[in-house]
């Protein structure tokens, strides 16, 4: 048994243990934090499995963004008077049969997953062979934007629908100020003046690198979201109840870019979703990054738009 496998075993045990705590715990706040930890362990597992793209995405989105959203929602619940720690109740009657059934489910899934035999001509292998046709160096990005662009376009639609849904649910509720932070305090000031530009740079780097190396619009968008969340949390930008045109355009940019390029291919007599060149990849990725960042920041702030705080 090598060290590597030992690390794998530890990570695996951590995953199972953390998930159990997250699912069955009684203190919500603690368990959300544990969930973020769980996400980070997953990210580590990705890198162990040789998938740095995923590790980046998981850390930024799976753990970071999801965790931040969870914590924010938690705060709103608690502010509204919800209990943090659930009263100790007897586990419901169905707990035991459900546990038994899920146990069986686990066994079945494990059995099936271990029985998988990879075929030599799997799609992934063909992707690597055909990578040249895409004009991109990163096979994952090529799949996302070139070979299976339809999935990614519809995924942007999912993101948009989630935001529209949240807007519909929020109704006329004014989001209000989130947090009272005096951004003239040295620490916050430093944070804003240094961290924000740096995250922006990282995002742009990830975006540009994504065509050939690990990274891409998702990861860049997530990092940029971090910047947005920071601005919201420090009160540099203020949530608003009505979306202006600029916000709306930013929100739909990713999907719109995809739709325009994907549909115009048809008008030009090519197959739908064909990209006319590498510039289209950059265009779409930039638009996607902006849309992801703005959408997620708005979802985080439960707002329809953001505007700079006036002194």
């Amino acid at each position, binding site marked *: 048994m090598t060290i590597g496998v030992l690390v794998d075993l530890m990570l695996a045990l951590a995953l199972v243990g953390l998930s159990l705590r997250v699912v069955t715990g009684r203190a919500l706040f603690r368990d959300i934090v544990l969930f973020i930890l769980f996400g980070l362990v997953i990210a580590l597992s990705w890198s162990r499995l040789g998938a740095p793209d995923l590790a980046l995405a998981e850390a930024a989105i799976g753990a970071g963004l999801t965790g931040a959203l969870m914590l924010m929602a938690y705060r709103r619940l608690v502010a509204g008077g919800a209990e943090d720690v659930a009263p100790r109740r007897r586990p419901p009657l169905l707990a035991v049969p459900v546990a038994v059934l899920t146990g069986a489910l686990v066994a079945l899934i494990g059995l099936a997953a271990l029985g998988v035999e*990879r*075929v030599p001509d799997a*799609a992934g292998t063909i992707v690597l062979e055909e990578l040249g046709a895409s004009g991109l160096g990163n096979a994952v990005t090529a799949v996302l934007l070139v070979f299976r662009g339809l999935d990614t376009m519809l995924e942007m639609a999912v993101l948009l629908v989630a935001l529209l849904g949240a807007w519909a*649910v929020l109704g006329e509720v004014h989001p209000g100020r989130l947090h009272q932070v005096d951004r003239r305090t040295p620490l916050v000031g430093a944070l804003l003046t240094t961290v924000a530009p740096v995250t922006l740079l990282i995002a742009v780097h990830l975006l540009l690198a994504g065509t050939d190396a690990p990274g891409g619009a998702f990861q860049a968008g997530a990092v940029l979201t971090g910047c947005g969340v920071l601005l919201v949390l420090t009160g540099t930008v203020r949530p608003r109840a009505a979306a202006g045109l600029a916000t709306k355009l930013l929100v739909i940019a990713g999907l719109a870019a995809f739709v325009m390029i994907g*549909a115009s291919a048809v008008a030009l007599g090519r197959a739908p979703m064909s990209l006319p060149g590498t510039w289209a990849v950059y265009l779409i990725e930039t638009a996607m990054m902006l849309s992801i960042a703005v959408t997620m920041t708005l979802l985080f702030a439960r707002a329809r738009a953001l505007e700079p705080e006036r002194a």
Partner: protein
Amino acid sequence: MTTEALALLVFAPLVAGLVVIAAPRRAAAPVAVAALLTLPFGLWPLTLVVWRGETVQVALAGFAPPLGIVWRVDALALTMLWLTLVVVLVVSLHALTSFPPASESGQRFWPLWLILIASVHALFVSADLFNLYVTLELVTLAGVAMIAIGGKPAAMRAAMRYLLLGLMASLFYLLATALLYGQTGTLDLYQVGERLDDGALALIALALMVTGLLVKAAIVPLHVWLPAAHGKAPGPVSAVLSALVVKVALYILIRLWFWSGGAAGGDGAALLLGLLGALAIVHGSLAAITQTRLKMLVAYSTVAQLGYVMLLFPLASTAAFRAVTFHMVAHGVAKAAMFLAAANLLHALGSDRLQRLVGADQRHGVNVLAFALAGVSIMGLPPSGGFVAKWMLLEAAWRQQGWGWVAVISLGSLLAAVYVFRVVALAFAQPKGGSVRASVGARGGGRFDTTALAALLLAVLAILLGFASAPLVALIDRGLPPGMLP
């Protein structure tokens, strides 16, 4: 021509949705209407090709599977697209009044509505397991968001339950997709079917996938989310959820079973699915009978009607396939009419408690008529599309000596009659203190606006389908699953 047509079906509503989000409010209505009116032009060229017995295939971005994704339109997909077109156009007519595009509520409704239409189209034509997952999520999320649009607590709770169970179901589906991809190296529905052997892995993957789809399709006992979700949603949303969105999961299930090697599950699994369907018919109908609210009654009726589709799996004959496909169309049209009529009555009476319906026929006659006509089809009485479907299904069951299925189908019709006539009888009842004699100035028929017109239009279509079954059956026959002969 077909590539453009197919692209139009997906892109036109999508573009319109984006424009409605960003453009000034007054542009919303013309943009939405224009996009909707282009849809027939997308569907027609596809129909011409499929009618010739061909299948439309479009490789997206020009990459054939397993590398890329294909859109594939055969007769089954085309049938569902036609159902979508009819339901969506008429329900949109309703929504133009019930959610005026320039209003605050309309601004929330229309983008979701248009994206939902695009995603339903994208789903029906998709032949890729993972792409189906994405479209399924899109359809579910849009549906949930539209349920919650009204903002009432009960609607929110219903949306919440639907969302949680829907997401769980999607993950089951996705897990199975992963297993199938690992084993076959492709995500294309048909290639998976060709490459899959019927080993334990295939069985487990299929079981997971079927479980997920049964949740999405609200097949008893996995239906708990449906009644409130459909019953508490705004009228046009209820209509399209019951007519199309639940069918989407059944559509994938049928595809999987008959085109992609799902039948490897064997007779036992097919029988189990059929028994669940029978349970759905009986339980849904009985529950509908005991409801005290109109829209909940209609929602439970959907639970029951979905059960008929499941009878396809044990029967598994050409006749049953025809019957079930026809049933999906007939039920879609009739149920959309029923929900629109119910929503109109709710709007007019202020509540959909059944007691409030007493005497409703005198002031809201058009909506009661629409409900009743749709009810004829739901009961499976002639002349209606529902009758043709039940006839074909009964015949299919009879020819295979499936006496139990025959009994269940008949029982389902009778139980449907109980809940449909219960509603209509209340509407016809004399209110307390009213008299048999005409009151001065009483207006019969009720207000005839576009919301009532939409309900009536669909209801009349549900009836007319009973006389125009031949072309639809001919279309269905052009897309029978492999191994079934016309």
